[in-house]
């Protein structure tokens, strides 16, 4: 599948933004992150900027961005519509949470923080389901796709919150969470990649043409000599060796290194710790861009059976 930059950026930025909102809304009422107004507002602002930039970027992918509002109407059947509803709904508690912080009203921040956390998790879940419900794409129907989206959102959000916390003197709890989520991401993505490499195809050229009763089916002549929408959108292929290198890069630099930097920061703390957490957050986001790009580039669609026979 074609890794459209607008979608790769959207899922990375919004994922991190919702992850940050999730941890902030959850940990702040529990008193596990710095309690000052400046920290709370900065973290919330960063989350909302990431979320909004991502959502705006996703509309750049549309053929008719001005009609985007129509996308919230079909929540009964469509996960994309549900994602839109969840994304918009989450703004309400998030903004009220911000007002609570501004007015220093813990009675408002606590419930709104928890509601915003719930909304953030629900939105990422819907994002994952958009992909997981597409039957023609073997790599996306896998049961680890949705947990992967949730986990990576939690990982990047915790890394960002740890960085901000360390600027205000205490990022220990989110740093520990980022460490755990980073290690979990390492394991989950490894299992996922091994699984999709071994998964049988969802269909074959024989079943796609109903000609299997004659024997093996091979494309002889394509229907058109130039490319088309289908081949550009669904026919995108990445060389095996490039995929291997990018997987390794995402695992080591994207998940492993930030986890190690979090561990280092937990040990040393202070300015060194803050620097390590900043680097860790940057690496986590960069690693996520690579992982998301691969999520598309490695995905294969059944329409290529007609064009390539596989």
């Amino acid at each position: 599948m074609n890794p459209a930059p607008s979608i790769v950026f959207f899922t990375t930025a919004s994922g991190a933004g919702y992850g940050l909102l999730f941890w902030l809304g959850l940990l702040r009422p529990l008193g596990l992150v710095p309690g000052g107004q400046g920290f709370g507002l900065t973290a919330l602002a960063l989350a909302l900027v990431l979320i909004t930039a991502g959502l705006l970027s996703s509309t750049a992918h549309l053929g008719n961005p001005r009609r985007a509002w129509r996308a919230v109407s079909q929540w009964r059947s469509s996960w994309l519509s549900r994602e839109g509803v969840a994304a918009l709904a989450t703004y309400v508690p998030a903004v009220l949470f911000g007002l609570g912080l501004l007015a220093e009203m813990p009675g408002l921040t606590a419930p709104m923080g928890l509601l915003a956390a719930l909304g953030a998790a629900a939105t990422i879940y819907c994002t994952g389901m958009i992909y997981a419900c597409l039957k023609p794409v073997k790599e996306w129907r896998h049961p680890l796709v949705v947990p992967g989206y949730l986990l990576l959102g939690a990982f990047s959000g915790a890394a960002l919150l740890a960085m901000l916390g360390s600027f205000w003197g205490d990022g220990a709890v989110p740093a520990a969470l980022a460490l755990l989520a980073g290690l979990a991401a390492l394991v989950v993505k490894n299992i996922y990649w091994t699984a999709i490499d071994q998964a049988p195809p969802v269909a074959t050229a024989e079943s796609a043409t109903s000609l299997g009763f004659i024997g093996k089916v091979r494309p002889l002549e394509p229907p058109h000599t130039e490319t088309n929408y289908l081949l550009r959108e669904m026919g995108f292929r990445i060389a095996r060796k490039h995929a291997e290198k990018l997987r390794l890069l995402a695992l080591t630099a994207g998940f492993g290194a930030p986890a190690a930097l979090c561990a280092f920061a937990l040990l040393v703390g202070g300015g060194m710790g803050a620097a390590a957490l900043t680097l860790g957050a940057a690496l986590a986001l960069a690693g996520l861009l690579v992982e998301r790009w691969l999520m598309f580039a490695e995905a294969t669609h059944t329409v290529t059976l007609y064009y390539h026979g596989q």
Partner: protein
Amino acid sequence: MTCLPAPGAKKLGLVIDLDTCVGCQACATNCKEWNASGHSAPLPDFKPYAAGQEGVWFNRVHSFEAGEGEAGRTVHFPRSCLHCETPDCVTVCPTGASYKRAEDGIVLVNHDTCIGCGLCAWACPYGAREMDEDQGVMKKCTLCIDRIYNENIPEAQRQPACVLTCPTKARHFGDLGDPESAVSKLVAERGGQPLMPELGYNPVNRYLPPRKKALPPSAPVEDAPTPMDIKNPLLRWMDRVLSR
């Protein structure tokens, strides 16, 4: 509404004969011709007079080789929307632009509300949907909805453009929900097949398998003319003499 309607009795669709299709591209061409000015108009072409020309087509004719050696065959294979009974291309649509008609099962896109997100094209296993990148909306086969119910054209022409134009009559249109219809009988008689049934979309269109190749007789049969076949009187006389 992108929830699927309750299954209706009428299931309009195509039956395509892979035995007689010669891959001439007439159906694809007439489809483009009709639909460039009908319900889905315009159907864009990009760089039509330069290298790298491409455009939106609802019907694409592939050619495949199946089997090995003497048992192998070349099969021409037109591919278009199968108007599936339970298609995810409809349910994934966030706007309600993609829908399945309850009255005849035709799957359509409302070009006035489509946002061009492309999700329905991802959800179609068969590659039946192509984005009009000029208008920013999704387009697909309408089963010539603007012909089959069109009272302004002669009744005999109220058929999809691809069906009317096929020079080998390899394409048939009708109600596959009615077991007594000509298309249903054809499917029953020839063992018409669905494509990728394992994906669970329940396509309505059926493909008739290529017939078994006629085997050549083991030894050539000798030509045995009767006396009446021989027009030349001299040769007829010789035949009579030699046949004694």
